[in-house]
């Protein structure tokens, strides 16, 4: 028994300061990459569920080029038991539609070996920022998908009680499994990889799956299978030079500030 858990992770540039190339696309070649920060919470939660429900296993899953294997090894060092890498030139240019479709196909493949109960996701990636892949994977698999989860109150092989952070409060919902869950940062405090985990991660054999391994046609993946395309990126316009409030005393500064706020109808 136990739960068969999948956690999806993404390798992303560690920096947010990215230049734009002559082709109008972000210049990411050569940037140092690491696990998307939000995914660390999803990995940690998967491992915590494994620790709560005896007999559970966690498989880390990613879609990306060859080098992204590193993010799977990182996930293994944080306590995941296995990993799978959706990889191949045919996946280049995948938007959230094509990415989620391929990840869903990989989860189906894993389910064929042993049914998957739960797929966990980070809040969003720090490069694309969509936060859509988890919800879309749920839709492809026709599972319930609960995003913005800040607590897994209880979970067993058939259902989970989840706390969903809404803008104005917290929803508690019970979903039957299998289900996809998007996490938020508040859900836990990720542990750092253990030495034992790092050793195991180094040795792990990670299967690589191409589109045809997943039963997907070339026109269903990558740019061809995408519904959106980034035509170009630009830097947002710089903010104009601001006003510095000068004054001999704090009282004078306070009065001047309020003058400006009133004048500009900000209050």
């Amino acid at each position, binding site marked *: 028994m136990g739960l068969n858990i999948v956690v999806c992770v993404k390798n992303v540039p560690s920096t947010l300061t990215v230049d734009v190339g002559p082709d109008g696309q972000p210049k990411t070649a050569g940037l140092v990459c690491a696990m998307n920060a939000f995914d660390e919470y999803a990995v940690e939660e998967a491992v915590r569920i494994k620790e709560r429900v005896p007999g559970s296993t966690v498989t880390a899953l990613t879609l990306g080029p060859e080098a992204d294997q590193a993010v799977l090894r990182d996930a293994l060092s944080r306590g995941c038991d296995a990993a799978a890498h959706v990889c191949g030139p045919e996946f280049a240019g995948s938007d959230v539609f094509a990415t989620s479709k391929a990840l869903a196909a990989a989860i189906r493949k894993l389910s064929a070996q042993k049914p998957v109960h739960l797929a966990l996701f980070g809040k969003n990636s720090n490069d694309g920022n969509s936060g859509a892949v988890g919800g879309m994977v749920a839709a492809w698999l026709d599972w*319930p998908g609960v995003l913005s989860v800040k607590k897994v109150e209880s979970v067993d092989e058939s259902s989970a009680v989840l706390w*969903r952070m809404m803008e104005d409060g917290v929803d*508690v919902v019970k979903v039957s499994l299998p289900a996809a869950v998007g996490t938020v*940062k508040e859900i836990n405090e990720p542990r750092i990889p253990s030495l034992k985990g790092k050793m195991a991660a180094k040795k792990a054999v990670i299967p690589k799956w191409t589109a045809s391994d997943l039963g997907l046609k070339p026109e269903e993946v990558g740019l061809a299978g*995408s519904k959106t395309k980034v*035509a170009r990126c630009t830097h947002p316009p710089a903010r104009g030079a601001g006003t510095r409030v000068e004054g001999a005393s704090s009282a004078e500064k306070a009065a001047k*500030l309020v003058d400006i*706020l009133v004048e500009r109808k900000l209050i």
Partner: protein
Amino acid sequence: MSQPILVVALNLRGRASPQTWELLSVGRRLADASKSPLVAVLAGGGPEAARELVERGADRVLWTDDDRLQELNEELHAQAVLQAAAKENPAAVLLPSNVAGRSLACRLAVKLGAGLAMDVSEIEAAGQVKRGAYSGNLVADVEFQAPVRVLTVTAMLFAPAARQAGRSGEVQELKFAPGPTRTEFKSFQAEEAGEIDLGSAERIVSGGRGVGGKDKFSAIRELAHALGAAVGASRAAVDSGWIPYRHQVGLTGRTVRPKLYVACGISGQIQHLAGMSGANAIVAINTDPECPMMQQATVAVAGDMFELIPLIVAEVKKRKGAAVAA
């Protein structure tokens, strides 16, 4: 006539969301540009609420006040919208960029075979949209390779559609016939009463590490109260346990777009700026005149916040008093 624009109006717990008016104003503009009707699907509201949507710009409203749509159930909400979409065959579906809208958008995009763009900040009638990437450090122009676009629209960017009493339009009941759901709603716990939500706040006052303690956050609250603002915080303040996480602004917190953002004792690291650089006006109050926040600020006030805040509060009160007297 071309395909309609469909606005998703979510009345969770019987309440209209202010963001719906913003969606109606963008939707109206798109519909006019493509000479197509603006249709709204109202989930969780009756004919009365539907008529308000007409008065705010919808040509047709399909409403359902089914009880199961009082709380977010992304499966059932998606079914309601899909039912409307099957009838209307929309070119674009507009949703709010909040947890509910984003959850629904994922399912709708897959089921409609649509292109999805989250958190869009500009929408061109021809099809392209703009949205942030790398946490707002880049702006991406997104093109669609699909006949349907599903878009969640960033809050506070578009003026809410004004109500025109007596504006005419059709109001129809959507005979909602939901399939099964595997999601069961248990309970909802509201945040502290009277707290202004950061996402829809016109003004925000935030405190950072410079606040220096949990008790000292009362200064931030006082200024927020005087300005009619919501309270925000930097991660440093949240991690120090001075204020709960839901107040955090930035990369790992909320993205906000108020008219006025007052940053007190926040240095302005890129991860904080990621959440608030879209503010119309930034006021920085900081002892370090050269820190990044002071350089970004529309108005920079160098000094100790504990000296300045009481004086600012007093000044605001004085003027309010003067305005009342006059």
